[in-house]
């Protein structure tokens, strides 16, 4: 079955759309896609802010993202009437800013110096996702912002679902039972937990103290106590941005490559978006093997190559070119199967296919070109 075509221009031209989230497995070209879409939207008259997470050095340079100050910088767009801002997420800085904005200076300093906070803000699995959500919320809420469309690239997690799950995980961890008990030892460890659990808790602190050192537990305790009184509910903040992503003016674009792993990941994500009532724009398949025109089958090409390679009067050059053609047809066929099985499972999801590029994108011209291929939505 032929899938419906995804027309990205319809999405970026729709002025009611204010958030586009690009998501997918690692290594499928999320960041480049997000940047190319942002540039294209700007050229088509939107005022865009693109939030990238971990751009390749040269892509960052192409977008003028050389200053790491955690705020959007204007990128000069030569064509069209719109504007483009771009920024690269600095997760520690974003976390620090949340703390500074919500705590008085003394308390903020106390939190920022806390060893546990330092570990949490720079290496906690999930902090990057949480802060990407946080930043997205901030950019969206910013008054007098010069943008009306935010395009966000998601962190390179092992699973695309982490972007949706990690914030809630971090939120519930910080609001959770153990951390609360830990911060209120004076109330009697585990009161209300029941006698058995209280006994378990004794073992728990004992073991934890033993393997982590009592200092770590103390640091966690001070951190949570400090953070708790200044701004309530990490979870609440995460929930708010989560709700934003369920609104009508958000669109998710799931990015994949025509390989089984990346497609499986895309498939999970599409299912998940549906169950969370999050609006899916469609699937973008990058790195598709392009074949000019349907001129012959792979078998015909291979057989012709064989004849020319071995005949009495061999034509090695043409034989090799035909073999190359046969190869490309076979790869495309395999990719086609992968995409087809996705469509079989998700018949309603529109798809855009983007051909594999010979080189990485280094400048705005390159991004513009990717944007055109995205809009075309099928391999040339």
């Amino acid at each position, binding site marked *: 079955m032929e899938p419906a075509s995804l027309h990205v221009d319809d999405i970026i031209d729709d002025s009611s759309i204010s958030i586009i989230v690009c998501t997918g*497995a*690692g*290594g*499928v070209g999320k960041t480049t896609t997000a940047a190319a879409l942002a540039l294209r939207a700007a050229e088509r008259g939107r005022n865009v802010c693109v939030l990238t997470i971990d751009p*390749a*050095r040269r892509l960052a340079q192409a977008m003028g993202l050389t200053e790491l100050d955690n705020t959007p910088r204007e990128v000069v767009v030569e064509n069209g009437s719109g504007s483009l801002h771009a920024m690269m997420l600095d997760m520690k800085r974003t976390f620090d800013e949340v703390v500074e904005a919500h705590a008085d200076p003394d308390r903020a300093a106390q939190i920022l110096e806390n*060893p546990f906070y330092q*570990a949490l803000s720079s290496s*906690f*699995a999930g902090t990057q996702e949480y802060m990407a959500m946080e930043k997205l919320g901030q950019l969206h809420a910013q008054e007098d912002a010069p943008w009306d469309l935010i395009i966000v690239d998601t962190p*390179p997690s*092992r*699973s695309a679902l982490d972007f949706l799950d990690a914030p809630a995980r971090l939120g519930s*961890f910080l609001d*959770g039972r*153990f951390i609360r008990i830990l911060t209120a030892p004076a109330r009697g460890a585990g009161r209300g937990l029941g006698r058995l*659990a209280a006994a*378990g*808790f004794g*073992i*728990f602190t004992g*073991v*934890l103290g*033993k*393997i*982590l*050192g009592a200092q*770590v537990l103390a640091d966690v305790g001070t951190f949570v106590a400090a953070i708790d009184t200044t701004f309530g509910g990490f979870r609440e903040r995460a929930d708010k941005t989560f709700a934003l992503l369920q609104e009508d003016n958000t669109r998710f674009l799931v990015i994949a490559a025509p*390989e*089984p*792993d*990346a497609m499986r990941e895309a498939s999970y994500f599409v299912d998940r978006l549906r169950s969370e009532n999050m609006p899916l724009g469609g699937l973008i398949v990058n790195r598709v093997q392009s074949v*000019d*025109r349907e*001129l*012959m089958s792979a078998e015909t090409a291979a057989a*012709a*190559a064989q*004849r*020319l390679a071995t*005949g009495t*009067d061999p*034509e090695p*050059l*043409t*034989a*090799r*070119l*035909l*073999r*190359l*053609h046969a*190869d*490309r047809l*076979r*790869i495309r066929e*395999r990719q086609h199967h992968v995409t087809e099985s996705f469509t079989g499972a998700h018949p309603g999801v529109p798809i855009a296919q983007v051909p594999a590029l*010979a*080189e*990485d994108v280094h400048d705005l011209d390159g991004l513009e070109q990717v944007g055109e291929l995205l809009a075309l939505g099928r391999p040339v």
Partner: protein
Amino acid sequence: MTEALWPGVALHVVSGKGGTGKTTVAAALAMALARDGGRTLLMEVEGRQGIAQVFDVPPLPYEERQVAVAPGGGEVWALAVDPEDALLDYLEIFYNLRRAGSALRRMGAVDFATTIAPGLRDVLLTGKACEVVRRAEKQEPNAYDAVVLDAPPTGRIARFLNVNSEVSGLAKVGPIRNHADLVMSVIASPRTAVHLVTLLEEMPIQETIDGVEELREANLPVGGVIVNMTRPPLLTHDEMNMATTASLPVKQIEEALVKAGLTSEVPAITQTLIREGLDHSQRVQLEERELERLNELDLPVLQLPYLTGGIDLSSLYELAGALSEQGAR
């Protein structure tokens, strides 16, 4: 066959950027190392069940299971390590606390502990790999000739392996510190080799170069770079030069096509072949440039072919064979 690249290495750590096929390569390496009667263990630590997918078997429990037979006889075993189970193992071995451990797990405390201290999680995971490696020197019956660890991606690998600095903030003295020291005595030794999987593309190559630098700075032993999904050049050097300078002989190709029996749309086919020849030549030239950058690292560089049919057990044999031929021993 070429000389063995990694004699004396008992722990092979395989890392790589997302999308480079690191799990597939790790599986092929485990198979190559088990050939002709060996016994290897393939471990994964990211809770992804990637090994089960590669070998097309049901999800793996926290238990060593044989998943394949190696070429020439030999056993490939697999283990999916879960940090919670590794912590319980650890508590049992060092504190004899198995029962308390299960209670803690039911309360969610184990998850909590590994969450507040990500360094603890890593030391438990690498610790499990080292425990298996050390079985060989203790001559235990369940020992392996080699352990292959499907490790976190390049961006995190140095931190993941450098458990000493990870736990230094946690514990200056005490059991976890000793445990970390024990782990480091295996990982930062000639018994370990860290391999990075990459594609011949700009971004993964850059990440590989950065990764090697980071590993070397941390004094972690780098084994080699494995270039995955390479497509051999299908044209000769001269032909590629002609393709990129738009001087492929149009007439000659057209005549050859007719000779091969392709008589309809000959000009269109010729144009397609020429365009594809150009595309291919540009790609090959880019790959050559990237390969040169890799060679500057002064490390063994192994290459694995792109398999048009996708990955199944027979293609794993093929990749394992290619690794063995290039000295993966």
